[in-house]
């Protein structure tokens, strides 16, 4: 993915360099805030930035050398953008990936000097914020807990790699020097990078999970999700000897609303209320999954007619078939009318279709629930509909 010199023409490379420089300047400012520590640490941010960001950059650099075997003797390596974003925050992530790219280009000739702007724009300025944005949104939507953080990290890493590929294709469209049609570049780049993204996603999620189980306080993306670590008195371990200080601590942990994991229950503490999974969260998570499936998976779905259509065409049945009354509708044939690229239009139509289905389904569900609430008698049939509806 490191673009060499001469692949993108000079003006676009310079423009991308300007974009990259601006983004790095912004993230330098943001990284100070992020690395100041969870407690704010009283103005420590400024001077903590260099050692911490430097070590994280060294980590990203090292982890790119960690090879993960894929079947058949081939192996891949982590790109680390999404991982850095989840572990240390988006600004520091952009900063670290940019520094790694800078050093790789100056010291190891990996990625051209003039293409440095292009490389930073793709892999840091686009990939990292996309990953973090998606991660944040998913964490907010999914039920609280450790699984949500790893799941969101998986999705974020999965999307970040093709996003970088799309950004590259856009730069290629502006200033590519080879005469390959845009469609081919797009399909090849995104296709290959979805595969790479799958590996990246699995490793990122597993790594985030591993860090989360040892030092949950270090995972930037999980702040506010896991219980804050508190200092405890030794006396607190004695049953019935809970001091005022520990009671206060426990009360604070409860106030955060998070399950106090790994903390032995103590007599003075009020047990944290067990939260049921709220339907709204499950509902939103399902919606997100359906949208991703419709938008991304249908992108790769076969363009061939499905079995029935194929048989009909072979047998000449469809000669008699009349055009459907909705054939002129903007969504006919699972495509959006004014988008010429078939795959893109298929994906868009899929997303719109899921939205419409969902709206109808929710409508039915609401009606059924209202009826069930008013009349308990037809509860059996209503619960059946409930199951079908969801």
């Amino acid at each position, binding site marked *: 993915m490191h673009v*060499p*010199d*001469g*692949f993108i*023409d*000079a003006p676009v*490379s310079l423009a991308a360099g300007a974009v990259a420089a601006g983004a*790095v300047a912004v993230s*330098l400012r943001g990284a100070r805030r992020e690395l100041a520590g969870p407690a704010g640490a009283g103005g420590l941010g*400024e*001077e*903590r*930035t*260099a*050692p*911490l960001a*430097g*070590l*994280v950059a*060294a*980590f990203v*650099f*090292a*982890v790119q*050398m*960690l090879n*993960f*075997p*894929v*079947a058949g003797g081939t192996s891949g390596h982590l790109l680390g953008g999404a*991982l850095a974003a989840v572990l*240390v925050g988006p600004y520091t992530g952009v*900063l670290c990936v940019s*520094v*790694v790219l*800078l*050093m790789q280009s*100056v010291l*190891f*000739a990996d990625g*051209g*000097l*003039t293409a440095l702007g292009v490389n930073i724009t793709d892999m840091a300025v686009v990939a990292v914020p996309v990953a973090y944005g998606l991660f944040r949104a998913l964490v907010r939507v999914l039920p609280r807990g450790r699984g949500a953080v790893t799941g969101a990290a998986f999705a974020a890493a999965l999307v970040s790699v093709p996003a970088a590929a799309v950004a590259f294709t856009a730069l290629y469209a502006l200033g590519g*020097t*080879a*005469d*390959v*049609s845009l469609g*081919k570049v797009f399909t090849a780049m995104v296709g290959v990078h979805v595969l790479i993204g799958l590996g990246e996603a*699995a*490793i990122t999620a*597993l*790594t*985030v*999970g*591993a*860090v989360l189980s*040892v*030092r949950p306080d*270090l995972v930037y993306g999980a702040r506010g999700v896991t219980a804050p670590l508190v200092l405890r008195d030794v006396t607190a371990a004695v049953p019935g000897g809970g001091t005022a200080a520990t009671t206060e601590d426990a009360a604070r942990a409860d106030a955060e609303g998070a399950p106090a994991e790994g903390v032995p229950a103590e007599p003075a503490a009020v047990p944290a209320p067990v939260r049921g999974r709220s339907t709204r969260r499950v509902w939103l998570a399902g919606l997100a999954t359906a949208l991703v499936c419709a938008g991304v998976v249908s992108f790769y779905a076969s363009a061939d007619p499905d079995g029935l259509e194929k048989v009909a065409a072979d047998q000449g049945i469809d000669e008699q078939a009349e055009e459907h009354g909705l054939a002129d509708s903007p969504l006919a044939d699972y495509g959006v009318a004014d988008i010429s690229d078939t795959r893109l239009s298929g994906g868009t139509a899929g997303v719109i279709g899921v939205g419409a289905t969902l709206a109808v389904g929710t409508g039915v569900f609401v009606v059924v629930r209202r009826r069930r609430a008013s009349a308990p008698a037809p509860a059996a049939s209503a619960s059946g509909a409930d199951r079908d509806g969801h």
Partner: protein
Amino acid sequence: MHALPPHCKLVAVLCFVLAVVSTPREAVGAFAAYALLLAAVVRLARVPFRTWLGRLVIEVPFVAFAVLLPFVAEGPRVEWLGLSLSEPGLWGAWNVLAKGTLGVAASVLLAATTELRALLLGLQRLRLPPQLVQIASFMLRYGDLITDEMRRMRVARASRGFEARGVRHWGVLAKSAGALFIRSYERGERVHLAMLSRGYTGTVPVIDEVTATRAQWARTAVLPAAALAVCLAGWLLR
């Protein structure tokens, strides 16, 4: 060559590569001239040709891409050894290969004649934000350490009979990556505290200020100036 100030060399290499990139691809002679120029400088700097060429291997993935280009590009086709190749594709492949290789060769030359630390000082001298240079210097200083830590974990895994063979072993490797992150981050915190206790206030004093005399600038300007001349000649004689 080794003694020239690092920031002069950085500017020179950047200008050289810019000249190469903006040369029209039909000017085949120009690229030969660039290669000769670089070879002359390598000779002058007494960098062994073998190491210089050996480090060009980094470019291999993109060579594979360039080889594919003639097959997938559009435009009129030419027959060659029974293969149907696209003519613009061939030009595109040549373009990527020639410019990419020259760029890599120039960067390798820069890296071979300049110390890491000098390179960072040069970047700072070129008005890169000092914070960025500091981050990069920390990364380089601790990069070997972190890589070594990773290697030790690999040895530890191997000595317990682990061998990563497929997707099923990703979990173990990811746990190593997680442990590596925790170790690096905690080391960063310790380094920060150690620096604080030695009076660190957010900036590292620059002790050896690098400056360049006019003569040094003139000497480093020879390569990009020659490249610029070749580039202009390439445009005029097209």
